[in-house]
C-alpha cells in the first residue's frame, strides 16, 4: 500500500472526516432526512461528484475495496478519475467487480447485481431537495418536510399525466423513505428505484454543492410516488443487450454510425462482462464493437 506523501489518508483531514461521519450517523438515524454538513473543497469542481467523494473519504478504510461507476460504467472519465484519486490518496485496492467491492461510489446507476449487507453504496447528488421544483424557498421546503406536507409533490406527477398520458418522469423519481421523508434518489433512472427498497447494503447520499448528506439504512422501505390509477412503472425495452443478450437490465442506446444504426447495450458494464463470461451472447457479439464494450 502506498499513499501520496503530504496528504492525509483519503485526502480529507481527520477533523473534517469526523464532522462528515457525524452527519452520516444522523442521516442513518433519520432515514431520508437531509443533514447539512460543512462541505469541504475537493480538488475537482462541484458537480463532478465532490459530495460523494467526501462521503467516500470519510467512510473508507485501509481494508476497503473501492468501485466507482458513472452511468453504470467503470471506464468513463469521472469514474476513472475518482477511482485513481482514492487509489492515490488512500492507497486502497480498487476493483471493477461489483461482487468484490466493499464501497461503491456511483453516479446515475445502482449496479444490476443485488448488493450485500457488507457493502456501502454512495451516491453523488446534484440537487438533494425533491420539493425544489414546486417550492423555491428553502425555509418553506424545510417546513414542508418537518410537517410531512408532501401533497404538492403530486402536482409534478399530475402535470406529467396531463401532458403525456402517463408519468413521464424517468429519472430523479421522488420516493418516500420509511413512510416519513420525501427523498430525491439522485438522478438514477426510475428503473433502479425498486432496488433501493429493503436493500441489504447501506445507501449514503452526498451533495457537495448543496452541502447535504442523507441516507437509507439497510432494509428500509423506499416507495416511489404514484397515483392509484397510474401506478409506478419502470422502463422496459423491446430489444435485448446486443453484447450479452440481457433482457432485464437497464439498456443504453448507442449510435454506431452516421446512418442512424444503433444498438442497445447494458449500462452496467461489469454486469455485462460477467454475463459474457458466463457464456451469454447478444446479437452483436461477433462485431468488433462488442470487444470494445467488454474489455
Amino acid at each position: 500500500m502506498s499513499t501520496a506523501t503530504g496528504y492525509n489518508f483519503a485526502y480529507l483531514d481527520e477533523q473534517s472526516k469526523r464532522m462528515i461521519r457525524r452527519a452520516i450517523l444522523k442521516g442513518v438515524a433519520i432515514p431520508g432526512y437531509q443533514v447539512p454538513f460543512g462541505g469541504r473543497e475537493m480538488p475537482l469542481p462541484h458537480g463532478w461528484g465532490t459530495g460523494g467523494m467526501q462521503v467516500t473519504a470519510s467512510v473508507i478504510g485501509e481494508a476497503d475495496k473501492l468501485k466507482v461507476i458513472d452511468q453504470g460504467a467503470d471506464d468513463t472519465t469521472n469514474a476513472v478519475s475518482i477511482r485513481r484519486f482514492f487509489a492515490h490518496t488512500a492507497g486502497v485496492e480498487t476493483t471493477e467487480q461489483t461482487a468484490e467491492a466493499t464501497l461503491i461510489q456511483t453516479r446515475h446507476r445502482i449496479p444490476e447485481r443485488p448488493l450485500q449487507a457488507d457493502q456501502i453504496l454512495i451516491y453523488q447528488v446534484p440537487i438533494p431537495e425533491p420539493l425544489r421544483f414546486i417550492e423555491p424557498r428553502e425555509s418553506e421546503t424545510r417546513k414542508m418536510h418537518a410537517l410531512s406536507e408532501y401533497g404538492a409533490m403530486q402536482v409534478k406527477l399530475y402535470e406529467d399525466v396531463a401532458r403525456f398520458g402517463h408519468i413521464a418522469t424517468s429519472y430523479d423519481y421522488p420516493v418516500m423513505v420509511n413512510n416519513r421523508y420525501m427523498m430525491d434518489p439522485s438522478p438514477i433512472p426510475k428503473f433502479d428505484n425498486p432496488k433501493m427498497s429493503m436493500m441489504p447494503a447501506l445507501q449514503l447520499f452526498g451533495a457537495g454543492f448543496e452541502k447535504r448528506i442523507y441516507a437509507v439504512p439497510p432494509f428500509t422501505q423506499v416507495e416511489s410516488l404514484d397515483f392509484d390509477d397510474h401506478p409506478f412503472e419502470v422502463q422496459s425495452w423491446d430489444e435485448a443487450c446486443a453484447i450479452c443478450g440481457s433482457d432485464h437490465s437497464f439498456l443504453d442506446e448507442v449510435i454506431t454510425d452516421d446512418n442512424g444504426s444503433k444498438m442497445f447495450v447494458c449500462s452496467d458494464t461489469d454486469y455485462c462482462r460477467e454475463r459474457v463470461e458466463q457464456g451469454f451472447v447478444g446479437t452483436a457479439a461477433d462485431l468488433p464493437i462488442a470487444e470494445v464494450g467488454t474489455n
Partner: protein
Amino acid sequence: MNTVVDLLTSASEWQDIAPLLSVRELNKFYAPGKGCGDINFDLYPGEVLGIVGESGSGKSTLLSCLSARLTPDSGNVIYNSEQFGEMDLYACEESMRRVLMRSEWGIVHQHARDGLRMNVSAGANIGERLMAVGERHYGDIRAKAEEWLTAVEIDTGRIDDRPSQFSGGMQQRLQIARNLVTHPKLVFMDEPTGGLDVSVQAKLLDLLRNLVSRLGLSVIIVTHDLAVARLLAHRLMVMRRGEVVETGLTDQVLDDPQHPYTQLLVSSILQN
C-alpha cells in the same frame, strides 16, 4: 343568503349558534398609526362580512392576521374548527394552522399570481389542494378539476393550459375554483375584483354571490369598492387609520351612515 335568513328565523336559535370566528382585542402595528388595532367582532356560519375603508386603513393587515398569515402583536383569534374544535389561531401549533389553510379555509388574493402556481396547468392548480389533503386518484382529481372549471365558467378545454395564458378575469376565477375545491367553510378575499374591468367585475361578483349562497360559505371580504360590498356583504366594518369606526348591516351602514368618515365614503360614490 338563505342560510342567514334561516338563522334569523328564531331569536332563541340565533343564541345557540356558536360563532365561526371570534376576534378579541386584536392589535397589529408596524409603527404607531400603521396597522390595525382594537378589533373585536364575531363571524357566524354562512355570514359574509365586508371590510371597507381607504387605502392604508389596515384592511389587508387585519385580513392577514385573521387568516393566520401574520402574527398579531396582541389579542386572540378564536376559530371553531371542524377538525380541531375551538382553537386559538396563534396559540396552537403551526401545523394546525397550515392544515386549516388547505382544508377548511380558502384565501383569494388580490393578485391572482400570488394565489396560483403560474408554471403548472389550471388542472394542477385546482388539484393541488385535493392532493394536499390526500387524494391520490388521477381520474378523480381531473374530474373534480373539470367540475370546478365549469362552476367558475372556464371552458374545460383550457384545463391543461397554464394560468399565464389566461386573462386576468379567468385567473381570478381559477383562483376561486382552486380555493373552493376542498369545500372550505371560511374564505378570505382581498380585493377579489381589483384590477378587472367593470363588466368582468360584474360577472365575477355574480359568480361569487351564487357560489357563496349555494355553498353556504362564510366570507370575510376586504374591498375599497362599496358597490362590491353592497352586493356581497351582509355586514360591514368600516375602517380608518387602523381602527373600526362603524359596523352594522350593509344596507344600514351604506344608506344611513353615522360616522363622518363613513358619510364621506358613501358620498364619494358617483351618483346618477
